[in-house]
């Protein structure tokens, strides 16, 4: 049985085609099952007595939960609601694809998707942590994806905070927020427990401001923890917003960078889920870059695939990554700037010859000479 909310959404979406043009997975695979309509149809058929099969479960995981469909719906329906519940059911019934189950097992056992042992995640930016306090007015949340896949982002952010004279501490990559688990198995109690523990650890730092580097984690702290009544006491701000504020106040003074034309890939968790896209542009402007917008940007951004899909179905993110690079190439830019480690990772694996992907905080550190 699906919840009343999931059933209502599925019943509405099962015969509606209006958002199919926005599905990043559907666009690159051309598969009919990769549309919110068909996923809603499957859920509604299951509610009408069709068996829920491993094939259907696998189809439910061919989605990056980027919420482009929800954002576009003129009447407010939300396919991710029933897709997440279908994933919960797949896990409960033991029919989730093996690669998905492995990802869940890794998260539950090690706290990250990448098979790294807890306690070893800070190795990529360990030098930067020296001398930092355990408690401070500002806490910087790193997240597992940055720690494991792009530690240079953490290092850059820490150096920038030091340069700006911010009194801060760091919450390392070991602290998972439940963002990945929530995408893989739905917003079940296990995920709430993880999110609550994360909020409690933030509270333990005594910070009044929590700066979150990974937009997926920022969304979890702001949106889900808010809904579940377990938001941290600290004010949660995205790193893009926080660093744009430091630039605006003159605490960071970037020098112009010579990169040729650049464009921005808005992470869906940041631009759509948190409705934040201007600070990235402010930072790009502050670095004096020749910027051209992609056609689909801001709340309309097209997901590159994301870390979860990349983890269990890398063959799909090979395609979604290429799809986003094609969008970028049409701007004439040679450099795509991201503000999300997942996007950086996924775009990075299919970078076309002569183009490159850069993280915005790494660039800012360079522009600020740190």
């Amino acid at each position, binding site marked *: 049985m699906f919840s009343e909310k999931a059933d209502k959404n599925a019943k509405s979406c099962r*015969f509606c*085609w*209006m958002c199919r*043009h*926005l599905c990043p997975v559907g666009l690159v695979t051309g598969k*009919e099952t990769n549309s919110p309509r*068909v996923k809603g149809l499957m859920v509604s058929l299951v509610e009408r007595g069709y068996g829920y099969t491993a094939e259907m479960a696998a189809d439910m995981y061919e989605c990056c939960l980027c919420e482009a469909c929800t954002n576009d719906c003129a*009447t407010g*329906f939300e396919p991710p609601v029933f897709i997440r519940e279908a994933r919960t059911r797949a896990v409960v019934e033991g029919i989730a694809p093996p690669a998905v189950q492995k990802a869940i097992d890794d998260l539950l056992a090690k706290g990250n998707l990448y098979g790294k042992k807890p306690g070893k995640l800070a190795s990529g930016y360990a030098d930067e942590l020296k001398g930092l306090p355990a408690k401070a007015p500002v806490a910087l949340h790193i997240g597992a994806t940055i720690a494991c896949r792009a530690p240079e982002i953490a290092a850059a952010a820490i150096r920038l905070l030091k340069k700006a004279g911010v009194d801060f501490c760091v919450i390392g990559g070991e602290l998972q927020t439940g963002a990945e688990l929530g995408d893989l198995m739905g917003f079940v109690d296990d995920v709430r427990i993880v999110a609550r523990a994360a909020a409690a650890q933030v509270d333990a730092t005594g910070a009044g401001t929590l700066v979150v580097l990974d937009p997926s984690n920022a969304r979890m702290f702001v949106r889900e923890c808010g809904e579940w009544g377990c938001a941290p006491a600290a004010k949660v701000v995205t790193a893009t917003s926080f660093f744009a504020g430091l630039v605006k106040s003159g605490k960071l003074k970037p020098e112009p960078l010579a990169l040729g034309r650049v464009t921005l890939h808005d992470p869906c968790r940041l631009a759509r889920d948190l409705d934040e896209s201007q600070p990235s542009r402010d930072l790009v402007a502050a670095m004096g870059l020749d910027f051209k917008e992609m056609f689909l940007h801001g709340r309309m951004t097209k997901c590159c695939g994301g870390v979860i899909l990349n983890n269990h179905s890398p063959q799909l993110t090979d395609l979604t990554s290429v799809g986003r690079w094609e969008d970028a190439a049409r701007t004439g830019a040679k450099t795509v700037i991201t503000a999300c480690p997942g996007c950086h990772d996924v775009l990075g694996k299919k970078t076309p010859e002569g183009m490159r992907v850069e993280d915005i905080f790494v660039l800012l550190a360079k522009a600020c000479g740190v």
Partner: protein
Amino acid sequence: MELQGFMTDMVCSEFEDVVGQANVSRRDSDKIAYGVDYFWIGRMWADRGRALPAPEFIVRPGSADEVSRVLKIANYYKIPVHTWGGGSGSQGGALPMSGGIILDTKRMNRVVEYDEVSMKVTVEAGMNFQQLEWYANERGHSLMHYPSSLTCATVGGFLAHRGIGVLSNKYGKIDDMCLSLQVVLPDGSIIESLPVPKHAAGPDLNQIFIGSEGTLGVITRATFKLYEQPEERRFRAFIFKDISSGIAAGKEIIRKIHPSIIRLYDEAETISIIKEVLGVAKKGSFMNLAVEGIPEMVALEEKILIEICKKHGGEDLGGEWGKKWWDNRITFFYPGHIMDIPQLFGTMDTIGTYDNIEKIYWAMKHAVEDNFPNVRFIAHFSHWYEWGCMVYDRFIMDKPPEDPEEAIRLHNRIWNAGIRAALANGGVINDHHGVGLKLGRLMKEQYGPAMKVFEGIKKSVDPNGIMNPWKLGL
């Protein structure tokens, strides 16, 4: 001949050899995806939990050459082929009613050539039309094809069913916008129509395949006109006392100027949908108009249409409601606004000359409302020409029979009554949704002996009858 035993696997291997293993499926969950399109009966059938029509194979070619090789195999084994683009058609045109193959075109989604000299774009037929429109928008251009299904359907789907958009008065139907086609015939031949659509080199090959609904071959590529974006688009709305005065105004306007939009709603639709979405709570017939292009011309055309509407008693509502309608033009079609199961409903859009169009409207309204208790009939008039216009009539029954077989019979009786009333008064089976499975049985009634022409073409290009059986009355 049925494929027995492991013969199905043998044929499947042949398809895999052409398009790759990842692009052939016999999974049950994939089959579900193709068992429902926008056709009411299919949706009702799914809602009742009945077994959906299912293909044996789903094949997803990535090029015309692959389509050609797939059709050669299908023809050899005499396996039915149902071409599927977006699957958003309302006539059951793509449903795999005879099993066989679903040939999903969506992997063919590339822009082949963008020609700013001649202002044309060549594109593969599986491309989503909104994606194509955005591609043109990036360059400051537009295809000016804005149907409510813009985001849902593919290039090939619009061509196969002769689609139309809300700006048709100025820019035409899809069959006016298309300059040339590439088609794969059922025997695997890849053919091209002429490079230009206007000529005296025999009948127009484009227009044989546009509207053929997958019964004569597979459209794999098309070239369309491109337009500069208008410098200005201005809206104006009016309320007329009835549809007669609105139609009189509309036909005078279209004969004097070129508005992009003229939409006239009957009194019933003005009260129901227009009030609900736009908040215009006035009695009468609501008309929305748009003029666009160079500002000087726009100003002049607006002045003329205001004069004409006033002459016919139209109350000027200004530009705000028209703009609001434009901003909400697709909102009408989202769940929560559009009719949905369990309601029984259908859109019987037809078209006629001005001497017939009101007769058609009233005959269809009476045929539906007088013969079927508890069925409402609403309509609007859009897509205007110098000689006539389209009426977009819809019927709605809130509580149809629970029993699905009984519901199908009632559905078909309502359709027969409505369409036969249109035909008897100078209308046609359909204006821009196509024929499909829904209306195929009425094609012979409409065309009479002229149907032989279509049957002859069908027999010539598809002698084994594998292409989309039972659709279009062929």
